[in-house]
Structure formats: C-alpha cells, structure tokens
C-alpha cells in the first residue's frame, strides 16, 4: 500500500513539473527572443558572456520603450557546447513556442539546431559560428548570422603569411566543423604562395579536443621547426597547446584563429606563454567605436563590472538588435515576415556596425584584423608591414 502511494505521488509530481513547461507565451505585451548558448560545458565562458550581452541589449531596447509596444524577454536554452545538447536545447525552445532565436556558439554545435529551427519555421541568428558550410552547404530559409565567415578569415591569413614572410607554416586543427573548415580554407588560400615557392606547409594535422596532454604533438611540431604555427580551433585547447609548447621550448610565432583570443585563453596559458602571439579576429569589443557600441559597453560594464571577453558575445547582442529591427520593419512578429524583413534590412545600426545580410543569411562587410598579445595578456591591433 505504501509503495503505491509513493509511486502515485512521484508520478503526480512529475506530471505537474512537465505541465509547467507547457505554458504558452500568450501574453502579447512580451516578445520572447530565445537565446541558445553554451552556459555549461567547455565553452561556458562564451555562453555566459553571450547571455549577459543579450540581456543588456534587451534591457537597452526595453528602456527605450521596447518594440511595437512589446517588452523583450530573453528565454535561455543551454546547449552545453556539444551538438547533442544543442538539438535538445533547440527542441526545448521550439516546444515553448519561441519563434525568434539567437544562437549559437560553435559551428558544429549550431548546425543541428539551425536545421531544427529551419524545419519548424523559426528564425535563428547565429552569433559565434563562422564555418562556411553553415550557409553554403545547403540553403536554409530562416538562418542568419551576425558574425563573419571563415573564408574571409582564411584569405586574410594568407595575406598575413605573405606579409610576414613566413617560409615554414604549420597548420593545426581539432577536426571540428569550424576548425577543420578554417584549416582547409587556409591551405587552399596558401596555394598560390606554395606554388610560387614562397612558403611551405610543413605540418597539417589535427589534435584530439578534450584531452589535456598535447606534449607529444608539440614535440613533433618542434622537430619540424616551423616559422609560423597556425592553430585554427577553440581557445580551450589553444591555451593548453601554447602553454605546453612554450614549456617544451617551441618558440615560433603562434597565430590563432578567431575562436582563440579571449581572456580564458590567457588564463589557461599564462601571460608569459601568450606574449607575442598573433590573433586573427573580427573587431574586438574593446576596439569598437560606434555610438551604439559605447552605449552597449557602458551598460554592460555597469551591470557586470567588465566588458565581454569576445566579439561573439557582442554579436549575440547584435542578433537581438537585428531581430528587433526586423520586427520593427515588418510591424509583425510572424517568422516569415521577419525573415523577409531581415533579408531586406538596411540602415539598421548595430553595435558592430550596420546590420545587413545577404541572400544566404551571411553578414555583409565583416572586416578581419590582426591583434597581438603583450606581456600583460592584453590585446592590441597589430599593423601588417
């Protein structure tokens, strides 16, 4: 008898909990914008910055009266930085009736979510996913991204190699969608230099992400004596790699792709190890000069005591801004109308510049720049010779 009572109360509790998740957003005074971000897991830092940025952007808009008479509410879904949880997070947002989503960080992680959102007609705006295949592999009807695209980055890398006169280039990635994409594009863009015998790719291989010991890979690289070591994947491994490299006595120039430079990278590796390394990135938050940027960074700093550590978080805020601008233009929150408005956006000023998207959903006019770490672990622009 006692057992059935226990079983009954458990199932009742479970039922009650599941029903509470079903409450539809029937309140027309609130516009819910979903945010999918890696709040936990290996990219937790990026996820938290993204959440804080989106909240700041939303509160700035709400303070100005909201959009179309509605106040913005950010609905968070944690994708833990891996594709499996990403699909679950997307499902969660879809089942809550959210129609406009900003997400996510990590191209390989965004792809399953973007597919799900697209199939249900939900508009999604990626903010930290720069792999070319996200928009070029197949046409997604409702996917946009406020960040740039990796072929721009790889072309810029080839220019950097040429200008710096590096003869022996090592390219290392982690087999992720993003990392491998950048590495392959880099190899492709370096081809003219290679055939002109101006440079040579002496190492092109991957490491296994998630490990902590890369001393063997670093030793192997050391025996090949590279002039320039290009690591194209995420900051979590990059920090360990450069730390172990410097400990092993590998002192060549280290160039990181756009997922490497952020305070976590410096924290893991230590100031001494990162000194002098160069980073390829879209403009970093501390160097943004638009009035919108100043307003956003001030509000963010007031709430969270520091500015976001990476540009991807700022792109998340711009994702919110882009969606709001589209809603304003379309005078509606219907996803199909918002998508049309997004494609036609013009004159919408975002934190990172003008918000314009091409017909594949990519952001237009994203510049790439070179930054260098000094001995205090701070970044500053590095002018190319």
């Amino acid at each position, binding site marked *: 008898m006692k057992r059935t009572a226990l079983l009954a109360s458990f199932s009742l509790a479970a039922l009650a909990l599941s029903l509470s998740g079903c409450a539809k957003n029937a309140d027309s005074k609130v516009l819910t914008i979903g945010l999918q971000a890696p709040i936990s897991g*290996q990219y937790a830092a990026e996820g938290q910055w993204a959440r804080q940025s989106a909240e700041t952007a939303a509160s700035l808009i709400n303070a100005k009266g909201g959009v179309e008479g509605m106040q913005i509410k950010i609905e968070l879904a944690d994708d833990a930085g891996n594709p499996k949880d990403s699909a679950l997070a997307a499902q969660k947002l879809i089942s809550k009736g959210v129609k406009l989503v900003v997400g996510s960080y990590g191209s390989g992680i965004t792809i399953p979510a973007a597919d799900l959102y697209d199939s249900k007609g939900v508009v999604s705006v990626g903010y930290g996913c720069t792999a070319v295949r996200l928009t070029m592999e197949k046409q997604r009807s409702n996917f946009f991204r406020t960040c740039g695209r990796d072929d721009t980055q790889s072309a810029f890398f080839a220019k950097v190699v040429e200008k710096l006169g590096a003869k022996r280039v090592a390219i290392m990635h982690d087999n992720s969608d993003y990392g491998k994409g950048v590495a392959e594009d880099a190899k492709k863009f370096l081809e003219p230099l290679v055939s002109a015998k101006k440079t040579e790719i002496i190492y092109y291989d991957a490491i296994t992400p998630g490990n902590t010991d890369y001393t063997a890979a670093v030793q192997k690289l050391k025996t090949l004596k590279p002039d320039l070591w290009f690591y194209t994947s995420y900051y979590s491994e990059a920090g360990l790699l450069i730390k172990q490299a410097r400990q092993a006595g590998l002192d060549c120039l280290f160039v990181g792709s756009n997922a490497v430079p952020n305070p976590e990278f410096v924290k893991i590796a230590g100031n001494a190890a990162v000194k002098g390394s160069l980073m390829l990135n879209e403009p970093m938050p501390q160097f943004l000069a638009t009035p919108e940027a100043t307003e956003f960074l001030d509000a963010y700093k007031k709430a969270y005591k520091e500015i976001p550590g990476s540009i991807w978080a700022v792109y998340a805020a711009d994702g919110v801004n882009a969606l709001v601008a589209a809603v304003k233009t379309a005078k509606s929150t219907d996803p199909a109308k918002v998508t049309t408005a997004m494609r036609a956006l013009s004159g919408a000023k975002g934190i990172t510049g003008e918000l314009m998207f091409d017909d594949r959903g990519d952001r237009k006019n994203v510049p790439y720049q070179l930054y260098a770490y000094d001995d205090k672990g701070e970044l500053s622009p590095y002018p190319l010779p």
Partner: protein
Amino acid sequence: MTTFLAQLLNGLTIGSFYALVALGYSMVFGVMKLINFAHGDLFTLGAYLGFSILVGSAGALTGLCGPWVGIALALVVAAIGVAAAGLVVENLAYRPVYRAGRLPLVVSALGISIVIQNAVMVIWGPRYQSFPAALVPQTAFGTGDFRITALQLFILVFSLILMAAVWFLIEKTSFGIAVRAAALDRETATLLGINYRTVVRFIFILGPGLGGIAGVMVGAHYGRISFTMGWVYALKAFTATILGGIGNIPGAMLGGLVLGVLENLFSYYVSDSWTDVFVTLVLIIVLVFRPTGLLGERRADKV
C-alpha cells in the same frame, strides 16, 4: 634516442595518472562487482579541492615556505576530502541499493556521478580554473628535446611510491589478504570471519583517496581544470583497468602505465588525432588473446 626517452617519460607520467584513477575502479569492481561511475567525478573533486586550498590558505603558506609546501598541503587535503566523499557516496548511493541487484546499482552510480559533477559546477562555476603559476613549482631540468620539470619528476616518483605501497598492502599484508578474499568470494570470506563492511569501507577510502591525489597532480601539472575533466580520465582509466584485468590491482597499475606510454608514443610517431583509434585497437587485440586482461587470471569454466 633522447626524444624516445622523453616521450617514454612523458607517457609514464600520463600513465601514472591513469593508473592511480584505475586503481579506484579496479578495487571497487574486484570486491563488489560494481563499476563506480562516480570515480571520475571524485577525481575532479580532488582537483578542485586542491585548487581551493592552493589558492586559499596555501597561497599564504607558499609565500612563506615555498610552492612545494603548498602542493603537499593540497595533496593531503584532497586525499582526505575525496576519501570522505567516497565514503559518503558509498553510504548514500550504493548501500541502500545493494539488495536490488546489479542494474539499479549502475543507475545509482550514474546518478551520483551527475550529482557530483553538477555540484562541482555550481560551487566552483562552469568556467575553466587554473592552478596559478606562481603557486606551483616551476623549476625544470634538461635542454633541447629532453626537458623535465621538477614537478613532473615528483609526480612520477610519488605515484610510483604510492602504487608500490598499494601493491604491498594488497599482496603482503593480512588486510590485503582480506580484500583479495572478499573479491574472490564474498560468502566464503564472511564465513571465514572477514568483516565485509570493513573491507568495503576501506576500498571506498583508498580508491577515491588515490583519485583525489591524482586530481591535484593533474591540476598542478597541466594547470587547467574544469568540472568535466573527470570524464576523459575516467574513460581512459576504465580502459586501463580492462587492459590490465578488471578486479586485479597490479593489473590496473600496469594497464594505466601501458596506456599512457602507448598513447604518447602513438601521438608522437604517428598522429595525435588517430591515437584513440590505435589505443582502442590495441585493447581489442589484447582482449582477443587474453580475455581477462594482461594480468587477469584465467578463470576455469565451471561445469
């Protein structure tokens, strides 16, 4: 030749981490036929406890007496803390479920693993933490290809001493005989007067304690810790346990060292991204020829 030696040495260092964690798995499985899924997370807890102690009070100590004292304190506190946690885990997650059979035990183990991992995330935050370079001994010897840090040397020597001590305890003392007897046949052991509860408590103190020590050493050696770090080590340590023969304590140590060395050599001479494939292949080949592992006893089939 020096590069080979350097890789071998590094492989032994990694291997000793795997061995210390594998010991925990092997002991628990040997005596209780239970795979303690929470072991990897207890290892993580050890790393975080060491981190907190180092950054907290040991920081002051280090300023006074040098980084080695700080590390020593971190090791002691982590060992005791995680051993206590291991006992709590046993009492909370396993003891109430023994009578229900093997499957509920496995589910309970997975459950407590999730609880510990998320508890660490909630307490210390989901972002990476770093053992501050100023609080970890930094001296290094050697030049060129053969470079070894004093910390690495200490880790290697200390781990080998620990493993030798455990081996001695299990093989040469009367308490060790009790543990081995309980692992062989629980009922007969209790008939002969061995207190099964005491043996269980002992393995849940020693196993997690060693895991906690390994956690601090990993944190000090690599610098970076996160609440998910236990997963990869647990997987590798589990592979090492199977390689050496599950339930066999010297086997766990051998399996760990062999795994570490193989991984490092493959990574250097072949390719880092294929290492996991090769190592798993080696495991499969070993199991084909010796199904109970490298040191596992051949069990006669009972008719």
